[in-house]
């Protein structure tokens, strides 16, 4: 029986088969179709998982869990969202489940303060804004700064890191980010504001006083 019409498709043709047909066949239990979906998305899933976990081993575990979940939930995929959006949501949930036990309360309180920075009665910044003396191009290869960047993103609670990664690293729109995470657009914007402000604060000592990094 060939309900989804792909048993005649050769291995070579499978690689260019339309995604909708592939998904329909995989939902019908076609192992070749499912394997092809894995092949198409494995790099995307691994790289996104790595960006969230910042750790190869955890990224690979998340990567495996994701495809096992994709197989198990494929029948519930109704095609209302794009397949990639649905896939990103599964990676995101797997990542959140791995982090759930981490203690994040302290950092969340300090992130709330970044929602609106201290301003005076006339709406000006209460503190002078630190000038960044260096541009990203100046410091791109600086190993110490790179580890500071890694440390800072590691400090961000997963809820914020996920939104920052989707919007600023994966280039997703606010709407798609909100759909992937399952939050409102306003909540996605708020998390992004806080995450960016937090990461900026963490890098300011390195970017506003270049001599501090290498003893100049």
């Amino acid at each position, binding site marked *: 029986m060939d309900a989804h019409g792909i048993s005649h498709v050769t291995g070579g043709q499978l690689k260019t088969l339309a995604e909708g047909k592939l998904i329909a066949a995989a939902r019908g239990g076609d192992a070749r179709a499912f394997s092809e979906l894995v092949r198409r998305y494995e790099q995307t899933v691994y790289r996104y998982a790595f960006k969230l976990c910042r750790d190869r081993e955890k990224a690979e575990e998340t990567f495996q869990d994701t495809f096992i979940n994709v197989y198990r939930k494929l029948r519930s995929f109704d095609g209302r969202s794009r397949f990639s959006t649905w896939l990103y949501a599964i990676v995101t949930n797997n990542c959140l489940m791995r982090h759930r036990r981490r203690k994040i309360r302290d950092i969340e309180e300090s992130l709330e303060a970044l929602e609106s920075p201290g301003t005076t009665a006339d709406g000006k910044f209460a503190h002078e804004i630190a000038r960044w003396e260096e541009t990203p191009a100046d410091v*791109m290869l600086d190993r110490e700064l790179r580890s500071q960047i890694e440390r800072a993103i590691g400090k961000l609670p997963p809820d914020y890191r996920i939104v920052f990664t989707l919007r600023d690293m994966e280039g997703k729109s606010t709407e798609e980010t909100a759909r992937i995470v399952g939050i409102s657009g306003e909540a996605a914007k708020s998390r992004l504001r806080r995450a*960016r402000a937090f990461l900026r604060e963490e890098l300011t000592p390195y970017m506003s006083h270049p001599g501090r990094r290498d003893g100049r």
Partner: protein
Amino acid sequence: MKCSDVYRHICDNLDQRLGTRRCREIRRHLGACPDCRAYLESLKATVVLYRSLPAPPLPKGAHDRLIRALRESGCLPTQAAGTRRAHSRRAQK
């Protein structure tokens, strides 16, 4: 327009063109306010720095380990079952 309004707006629209009336007000404010300008520039630089972080490709062997995990979880047929099915497909032709 206040710095606090600009702060909120530039964070939401960091990478978008400032074209609306409100955005023109913000652009005027940015032209006159070194603090907001410094904040916007450093925020943009933050994003550039994070985008420059390497995201490694799938490690060697990870694909095979995934296929093994999928077979062990019953998501894909075992190799023997897959081979039997391929033989039967060829026999039908």
